[in-house]
C-alpha cells in the first residue's frame, strides 16, 4: 500500500478543510468498505432474504419466524439465554473493569504484565481445544478442584452438570476464555488516560475508589460501552459453551440449550436454512436494539 505524501492542497488552490477531509476520509475507508460489503453486508442481506422466503425463494412474510417460534425447544432456549445473559454481562463488566483497575494500580510493571498474560492464557483455548479441560475440571473423580466441588455438594460429573447449574457453568467457562482479552483492552485504555488528569485527581485528594469511580471509569466510557455491546451480542448468541459441554458429557447437558444452537440445528440438521435465518435475524434485532440503547446513551458515535 503506497500513500503518496507529496504536495497536497498547499500548491493547488487548497480545497476547503471539510471537503479535503471528506475526500481523504473516503480514501481511508475505501478498502474496508469493499470488504464490508463483500463479507458483511452482502451475506447479512442474503440471510435476511432467507428469513423472509421459503426454500424455493417465494416470499413468506413472517412464516419462518412463526414456525421456528413454535418449535418445542424455542421458548426454553429463550429463557436459558436470558438467564445466562444476566449472569454473563454482570460478571464480565464488574470483574473485567475491577481487575483492569487493580492491575493498573500495581506498583510493579513486571507483575502487572505477567498477570495480564496469565489472565489471558485461556483466551487461546477456543472451542474444541477446551472440551478436554472442562471435562476434567468438572468431573469430581479426576478434577484438581474435586475438594471444592465436594464442598459444594457435587460428587459425580452428572451432579455437576445438572440442569440448574448450567447458566453458571457457561458463565464460568465463557468468562475463563473471554475475560483476559477484555482486561487487556481496558487496561490499555486506562493507560491512555493522560497522567496529568490522574495527577489532578490525586492532588484533589481523591482516593483509589474516588479516582476509579469519578475519573477513570467515566473516561473509559466508550470502551466499556463497546465491551457491553459485544458481550450482549455474544451472550445472546451463546453457542460454544453449551456445545462444548454437550461434547464433554456426550449429550447429557447443553444440547439444544441456546437459540443459536437451534439455528445450527435448523440449518444443518433439518435442512431449513430459512428457519435458521429467521432465528438469526431475531437475535440480530435483539442485539442491535440493545446496542442502539447503549450507543444513544453514551454518545458512542461522536467523533469527540
Amino acid at each position, binding site marked *: 500500500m503506497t500513500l503518496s*505524501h507529496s504536495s*497536497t492542497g498547499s500548491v493547488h488552490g487548497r480545497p476547503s478543510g471539510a471537503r479535503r477531509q471528506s475526500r481523504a476520509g473516503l480514501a481511508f475507508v475505501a478498502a474496508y468498505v469493499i470488504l464490508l460489503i463483500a463479507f458483511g453486508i452482502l451475506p447479512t442481506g442474503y440471510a435476511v432474504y432467507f428469513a423472509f422466503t421459503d426454500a424455493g425463494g417465494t416470499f413468506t412474510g413472517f412464516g419462518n419466524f412463526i414456525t421456528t417460534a413454535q418449535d418445542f425447544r424455542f421458548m426454553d432456549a429463550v429463557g436459558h439465554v436470558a438467564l445466562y445473559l444476566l449472569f454473563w454481562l454482570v460478571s464480565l463488566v464488574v470483574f473485567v473493569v475491577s481487575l483492569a483497575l487493580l492491575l493498573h494500580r500495581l506498583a510493579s510493571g513486571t507483575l502487572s504484565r505477567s498477570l495480564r*498474560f496469565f489472565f489471558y492464557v485461556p483466551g487461546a483455548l477456543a472451542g474444541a481445544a477446551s472440551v*478436554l479441560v472442562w471435562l476434567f475440571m468438572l468431573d469430581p473423580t479426576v478434577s484438581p478442584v474435586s475438594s471444592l466441588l465436594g464442598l459444594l455438594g457435587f460428587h459425580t460429573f452428572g451432579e455437576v452438570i445438572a440442569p440448574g447449574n448450567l447458566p453458571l457453568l457457561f458463565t464460568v467457562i465463557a468468562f475463563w476464555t473471554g475475560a483476559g482479552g477484555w482486561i487487556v483492552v481496558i487496561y490499555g485504555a486506562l493507560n491512555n488516560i493522560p497522567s496529568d488528569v490522574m495527577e489532578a485527581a490525586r492532588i484533589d485528594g481523591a482516593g483509589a475508589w474516588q479516582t476509579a469511580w469519578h475519573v477513570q471509569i467515566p473516561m473509559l466510557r466508550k470502551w466499556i460501552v463497546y465491551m457491553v455491546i459485544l458481550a450482549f451480542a455474544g451472550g445472546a448468541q451463546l453457542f460454544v459453551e453449551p456445545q462444548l459441554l454437550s461434547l464433554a458429557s456426550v449429550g447429557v447437558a447443553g444440547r439444544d440449550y441456546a437459540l443459536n444452537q437451534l439455528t445450527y440445528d435448523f440449518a444443518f440438521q433439518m435442512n431449513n436454512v430459512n428457519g435458521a435465518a429467521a432465528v438469526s435475524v431475531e437475535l440480530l434485532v435483539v442485539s442491535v436494539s440493545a446496542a442502539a440503547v447503549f450507543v444513544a446513551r453514551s454518545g458512542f458515535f461522536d467523533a469527540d
Partner: protein
Amino acid sequence: MSPAPRQASGRRRPRRLVPRLLTGSVLLVFLVFFVLPVLWLVLAATKTDQQLVHGSPLSFGSWHAFKHNWDGLTAFQDNAVLQWLGNSTLYAVISLVITLCVAVPAGYGLAMTEFRGRHTLLVSTLVVMLMPTATLVVPLFLEINAAHLIGTMWSIILPYSFYPFGVYLTYIYFTTAVPKDLLAAARMDGCSEFGVFRYIALPLATPVIALVGFFSFVANWTNYFLPYVMLPESDQMPIQVGVGSLLSNVPSFNPAVGPLAIERPQLALATLLAITPVLIVFLFAQRFLVSGMLAGATKE
C-alpha cells in the same frame, strides 16, 4: 509501563494494609482460576492415559510418557498435526497483514475525518458485527463459489480479513486517545491528510495496532467453523479443525472409534501445540501495548 512508578513515591499517602491484602487476594484468586486448568493441561500432556485418570490431577507424569504422546500424536495421519499448524500460520498471517492495512486506516478515517456516509458506515459495521454467524455460512459459501475461490486458501483468508472488531478498536482509540487539535496543527503546517495519518497518527497508534493485530491473529487462528465448512481437502485444514478431528477420535467423546484411537493425553498435547503460537504472539504484542505516548502532550 504502568504509571505508578511515575508518581513521586515520597508524596504518596501511606497505603493501608487491608486494601493491599484485599487487592492481593482478589488477584491471586483470579490467577488460580485462570491458570489452574491450563496448568492441568500442561501436566496432562506428560501422562499416560492411565495416569490421567488414576494419578493425582496436578502431578507430573514422565518424560517417557510425554515422548510417547508426542509420537502418538505425530503418527496420526503421518504428521498431520504439523501440517495443520503450518496451514493455520499461513492463513492467520496473511489475513493479519491485510486486516492491518485495511482496518487501521478505516478506524482512523472514521474517527478523525468527517465525510458523508461516516455514520452509515459506523452503524452498518456494528450491525454486521452483531449478526450471528450460523446463517452467514451459506451466503459466504455461495459468494466464494461465485468468485471461483472454493478450494483455495483465499476462501478462508478473504473472509478473515474483514475484521470489523479491529476497525472499532482503532476508531475508539483515535477518538479517545488522540486529540484532534494535534492533527489540526499538523494540517496547518501544510501536511496532507495522508501525511497527517502517516507521520502523526500512525506513530501514535502503536498500541492499538498491536491490539488489533493480536486480536485479529487470535480470531483467525481460533476460527473453527469457516474452514470446517469451506475447505474441501483434509490437507488444507487448520489446527483448530485438526484438534476437532482428533477429538472425534478419542473414545470418551466418540465411543465407536477403532483401534487407532487418540488417547486423551495426546489430545492435551495437541491442544498445547494449538495455543502456543497465540501465546507467543501475545507476549510479542504486549511489548507494544505500552501507555499512550501522548499522555500529557495535549489536553482535550
